[in-house]
């Protein structure tokens, strides 16, 4: 189709959808209103299980299957990106990378912030059921922290401090651990992903049953997964070149 025709088809479609959407939006309950039936059921359920962060409780207890699926999507796309970005037979990986020099102040600050970032990431994972955050957010913070080595330092430093094989295994184990925890709920408490551990006291680090454990598994998977994912992109951009 020509560009014009494409835009015409699109325009007709959008105007139709737009009208329908506006008419539908007029009927949505008023923005900021108080009618949330699911909330009214979910919040007491989470509080009963000593999970102050109801969102985490929903993600890892009440709707844990969604999160299992979500983490599997992450796993699938990490593996998928690795498959798509693998060097082909007509390519090779350069061993030496010509890199821009970084200002020394930047490098210094980057290396100073690295442990801080990792600590904050660990905190976000560990307190996922208490404060905002959780396995996913913390895992990404951890992975980003590691990449300070690249953005503030150099690619070779990153490569030296990043045993990719082990991250691949950690990612698989993290994702597997979630499913295995689900199955152990089946064995121990008669239901898949049943929260089988004692709920503890509201607000404690070790409370809310399996929620912190699942958070940990997700954190492990996400951190390693994002590292493996970014490794593929970095390799493509910096070292993989066509063999002439």
């Amino acid at each position: 189709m020509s560009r014009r025709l494409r835009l015409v088809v699109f325009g007709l479609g959008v105007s139709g959808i737009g009208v329908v959407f506006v008419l539908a939006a007029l009927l949505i309950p008023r923005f900021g209103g108080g009618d949330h039936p699911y909330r009214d059921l979910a919040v007491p359920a989470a509080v009963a299980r000593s999970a102050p962060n109801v969102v985490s409780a929903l993600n890892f207890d009440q709707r844990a299957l969604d999160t299992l699926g979500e983490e599997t999507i992450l796993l699938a796309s990490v593996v998928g990106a690795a498959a798509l970005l693998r060097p082909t037979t007509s390519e090779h990986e350069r061993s030496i990378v010509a890199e821009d020099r970084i200002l020394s102040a930047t490098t210094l600050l980057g290396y100073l912030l690295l442990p801080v970032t990792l600590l904050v990431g660990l905190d976000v994972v560990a307190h996922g059921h208490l404060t905002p955050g959780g396995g996913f957010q913390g895992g990404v913070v951890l992975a980003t922290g590691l990449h300070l080595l690249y953005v503030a330092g150099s690619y070779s430093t990153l490569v030296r401090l990043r045993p990719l094989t082990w991250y691949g295994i950690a990612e698989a184990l993290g994702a597997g651990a979630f499913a295995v925890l689900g199955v152990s709920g089946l064995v121990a408490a008669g239901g898949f992903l049943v929260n089988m551990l004692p709920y503890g006291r509201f607000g404690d680090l070790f409370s809310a049953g399996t929620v912190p454990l699942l958070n940990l598994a997700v954190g492990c998977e996400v951190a390693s997964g994002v590292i493996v994912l970014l490794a593929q992109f970095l390799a493509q951009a910096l070292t993989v070149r066509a063999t002439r």
Partner: protein
Amino acid sequence: MNMLVMLGFALVAAMGTAVVFTGEPERQAVTLSAYGLSLTVLFILVQAPDVALSQVAVGTAVVPLMVMLAVRKVRGRRE
């Protein structure tokens, strides 16, 4: 407070539009990053700190890094 929430929505709408109408991928990546920040502020405004944290985690460094590396690789091919 309600005014603030509405302002947040308006900023997000404007930034999303700006991202879409930036044709050149390098520039777009920067604007995308700023869009992510505007989303973060909005999420805090609507009392969704978990979501805001996710958006910060994904939107500030990881996605821009992927986009920029892809742009760089694609550029390298074109020359």
